[in-house]
């Protein structure tokens, strides 16, 4: 089994508590299913949409990341799968696709 990082990017934020509740339900169901199939290494955390970016030799600190909202990272999860193909397949069940987001699947480098 190898580990893969799922980066959740660019989903639309829910506009009402009811909608947020529905979104949460879907995610919880998805995580539950992944857990049952033994794919979850760490469910991860959601990320605040704001932060700081530290950059350059001067280490200048700016507010951000103000990347396009469409690819802002909203959270991460570490999953276990036999290979990248399976990891990508697993990611297809993520509810993020219903909200115009996408999942970046990255193999964790083995030492």
């Amino acid at each position: 089994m190898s580990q893969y990082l799922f980066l959740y990017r660019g989903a639309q934020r829910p506009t009402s508590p009811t909608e947020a509740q529905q979104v949460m339900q879907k995610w919880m169901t998805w995580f539950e299913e992944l857990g049952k199939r033994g794919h979850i290494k760490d469910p991860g955390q959601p990320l605040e949409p704001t932060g700081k970016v530290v950059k350059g030799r001067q280490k200048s600190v700016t507010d951000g990341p103000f990347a396009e909202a469409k690819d802002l990272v909203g959270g991460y999860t570490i999953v276990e799968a036999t290979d990248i193909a399976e990891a990508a397949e697993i990611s297809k069940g993520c509810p993020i696709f219903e909200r115009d987001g996408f999942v970046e699947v990255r193999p964790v480098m083995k030492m």
Partner: protein
Amino acid sequence: MISVLTRIFGFHNLALAEDVVQDAFCQALEVWKFRGLPENPSAWLMACAQRKAIDVLRRERTAREFAPELGRLAESEWTLVPAVEQRFAPHTIPDDLLRMMFSCCDPRLKEEAQVALILHILCGLSVGEVAGALVAGHAAVEKRIGRAKQVLAGARALYEIADERQVAARLPAVQRALYLLFNEGYHGASTQDVIRGELCRDAIRLARLLQEHPAGDTPATRALIALMCLHAARLPSRLDAEGELRSLLDQDRSRWDRALLAEGQLWLERSATGAELSDYHLEAAIAWMHGSARSAEATDWPRIVALYDQLLAVRPSPVVALNRAIAVAQAEGPERGLAEIRAIDRVEKLERYPFYPAALAELELRRGHTDVAREHFERAKSLARNPSERRFFEQRLEAC
């Protein structure tokens, strides 16, 4: 949560309190979707709202004026956090809910507006859900709630309940609003059974909260809880297995909620103190007569008629008079019942009430005047407020 925050921010900042709650809620859901539900979600939410409240006070303490009683406490970092924490302490929350309840029942607001506000702020229903529960248009309810909030914003602080005289002054209005809230769930025209059950439960919860406050614990409050429990006990049998409406006379009494009946009886006994005999006492007593009877035939109808007589004396209303006439018909036959219906004062007020022609129809049917009964049932059907009422009248038409 909104009540606590409003006490901190002041009533004129109600919108801010709502924003903070919504924000806390959305953030909670975001975290829970990854980490699963925490063991105590409401404590988690409270902690989150508390943190956000402190942020808001810090950020806006120069730009906004908050609740007068918070006053200078918000200005210094030394006093700000303890002051907010103290207001979020679990034992102060019931009082804040009561303060909010009393604030909503402002005499400058119409009763419908008070009920809408209680549903929205204290029961956490969205404007759309309030509109669904009260069977009113979304825009109309939005306007009603918006206007009510504006009226109340002038008060700045929440209604104070520490002084017994102040509680007593507004207590009847609060009881009335809770009564209407319950009725909306029990008799209201909302078609969704889920909504109705929830409205009844919310009304009972708030009435109990009122009773737990020493100044709110009057015989009338206890009678109000009794009547809510006794009516709510019959909710499960109002619809039969096919989801069709059933009249009280042919409900399956084994499906009545025994625990709620017993609780209602207990509250009715506890309400029997003092000199005050409120309309809630009388209604609870009537509900108990029905609740304790084994069948429609075994009901003590003459006693019920006598209780209705008393109720009419304190609260004259054509609907009460109609119910009384139906009880008379049960006790003394359809002819007497019809005579009583004809004698109802201001009967024109019942013109759009579907159960008025329906009552006429039932009695005509019982004395064998099938054609007249049909006409009345047709009229009732045309007035039906939702599909289950309509189907109910259609079934009665088939019986003619």
